[in-house]
């Protein structure tokens, strides 16, 4: 396998060079053509590649996935709504859908609350950037890495003679509790997985909300203060209303990300022990069971869940663009 590093390096270098050479040549030639030719050529060169790739890589596949969701395992035979009925009546898949609901509610709520708290606490603090970096750091590493970190926190030592090496078990034991094989324990395990996502996403909401808080003019806080508003009252009646738009952005963004959560479930439990979610089950159905019908159906369900958010986003963008 190590032998393949030579050919792989060649592919890498050739790939980069070809890409650069193609566009270098196109520019070299195009700049020499007449103004009239350029009027037409500009669409082909600037817009063409992106539109072609989007059509082949997103539009056509989306259509085909919808088509496949009405077909059988191999995609050869039309089965009508069978896959959709399967999704809503099979007990395991019902659990998957239930779990996904729990995820998309719990993660945005807690990530936003923690992020809001951190943003507020550090708003006028000295050395805030160091403190914020620590909370933000999980955002930079991969979810696979984060999952490995947390699997270790949740480790359980089945042999009672030996000491616990997982932090959670050790803490529970220290307080006189009984350690448990945490990741096997449904429904608690789903919440333990959710904790990982909250741990990651809090940094994001903190950064966005912190930027929003910094943008609140001092005068407004002052005015509220001179009017005798206490700290809590100012927080709920000045700060929160002033950053409402950012809170909505944080919640919707976190929600979309959570809906598609795959890495954490795959790495922590592989979707076993009743912890699977739709995005993970889609992968399992399509690429482990090799059932393109049910796999596609689950992908379509994800899309349907996101449609309200897409609609909302378009409306926001429209508003933004007319305001300008």
């Amino acid at each position: 396998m190590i032998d393949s590093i030579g050919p792989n390096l060649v592919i890498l270098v050739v790939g980069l060079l070809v890409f650069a050479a193609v566009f270098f040549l196109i520019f070299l030639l195009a700049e020499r053509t007449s103004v009239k030719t350029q009027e037409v050529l500009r669409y082909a060169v600037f817009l063409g590649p992106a539109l072609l790739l989007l059509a082949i890589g997103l539009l056509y596949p989306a259509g085909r996935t919808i088509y496949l969701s009405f077909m059988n395992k191999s995609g050869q035979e039309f089965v009508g709504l069978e896959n959709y009925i399967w999704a809503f009546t099979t007990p395991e898949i019902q659990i998957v859908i239930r779990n996904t609901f729990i995820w998309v509610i719990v993660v945005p709520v807690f990530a936003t609350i923690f992020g809001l708290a951190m943003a507020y606490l550090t708003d006028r603090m000295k050395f805030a950037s160091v403190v914020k970096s620590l909370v933000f750091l999980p955002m930079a590493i991969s979810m696979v890495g984060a999952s490995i970190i947390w699997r270790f926190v949740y480790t359980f030592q089945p042999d009672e003679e030996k000491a616990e090496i997982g932090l959670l078990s050790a803490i529970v034991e220290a307080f006189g509790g009984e350690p448990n094989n945490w990741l096997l324990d449904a429904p608690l395990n789903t919440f333990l997985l959710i904790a990982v996502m909250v741990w990651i996403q809090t940094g994001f909401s903190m950064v966005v909300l912190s930027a929003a808080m910094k943008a609140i003019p001092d005068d407004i806080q002052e005015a509220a203060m001179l009017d005798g508003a206490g700290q809590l009252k100012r927080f709920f009646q000045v700060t929160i209303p002033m950053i409402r738009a950012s809170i909505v952005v944080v919640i919707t963004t976190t929600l979309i990300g959570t809906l598609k959560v795959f890495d954490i479930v795959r790495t922590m439990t592989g979707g076993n022990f009743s912890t699977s979610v739709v995005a993970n089950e889609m992968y399992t159905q399509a690429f482990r069971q090799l059932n393109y019908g049910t796999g596609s159906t689950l992908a379509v369900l994800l899309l349907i869940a996101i449609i309200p958010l897409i609609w909302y986003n378009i409306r926001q963008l429209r508003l933004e663009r007319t305001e300008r």
Partner: protein
Amino acid sequence: MADTLKTKSDSQPLLTQRSKRKVKDAFASPFASALAIVIAVLWSIPTFGLLVSSFRPAELINTTGWWTAFANPEFTFDNYTSVLIEGTSTVPPLWYYFFNSFAITLPAAIFPLVLATFAAYALAWFDFKGREFLFFAIFTLQVIPLQMSLIPLLQLFARGVTIGDVTIIPDLGITGTYIPIWIAHTIFALPLATFLLHNFLRQIPRELVEAARVDGAGWFTLFRRVVFPLSIPAIASFAIFQFLWVWNDLLVGLTFGGGSQDILPLTVRLAEMVGTRGSGLEALMAGAFISMIVPLIVFFALQRYFVRGLLAGSVKG
């Protein structure tokens, strides 16, 4: 009347300054700061625990908690050297996957950025019918779950596209190389990158563009001489974001890596190591940190750009 006005405006700054300090004091209460520090420390403990453990000898990792390492410190680099350099008879060492991660990430960050800058230029500065529609369509595509694309795209790479007997796209014979992974990442990054760069390119002053046009610059020269140099900061900011996104990705690598060990990135290998009982905890810990080194360097060195890219690009599918 004039006098009262004057005193009023004179006293204003004094008042503002005093109350400003008051506002500041109220916020910077030691209690709030202490609480923030406590939360930040709590947030770091899981990572810190794994970091400490990764430097402990294997038998100690498995028998004692990492917090005991401070009472009787015993640290080693063995976990890192063995997982990074030695490997096993069936699986190559991690430095090999490290190389793959780079070989996947570099083109997968460069390609979409170039193509997106092109498209953004067209959407921002060409006047054509349907421009607004196209813009909204691309904006919408960015939140479509990429799960919608996986199966058809994988089939396309494996055997092309045929309708009946007509071959629309032939079997390209690229499975098992980096190319499908590059293309997939490029496609998935395009909508967001185009949208963000468009917002940036539109802010280039119209006079600047028109002046260049009057001077006789064609659309291509205009791009090369004016638009591209001006958009480098925006491109760089998004490049960091895209680089980390690809480096940290599992789903695309797993799906389009197609089971060929030769081209798999670090994340996929690590996920595999978690799944197999054979590989020890010590190898997994060291491996996890090896995969985090690049993101952490990028994060600490370019935090400001990273945050900017993230703030702008948080909705990626």
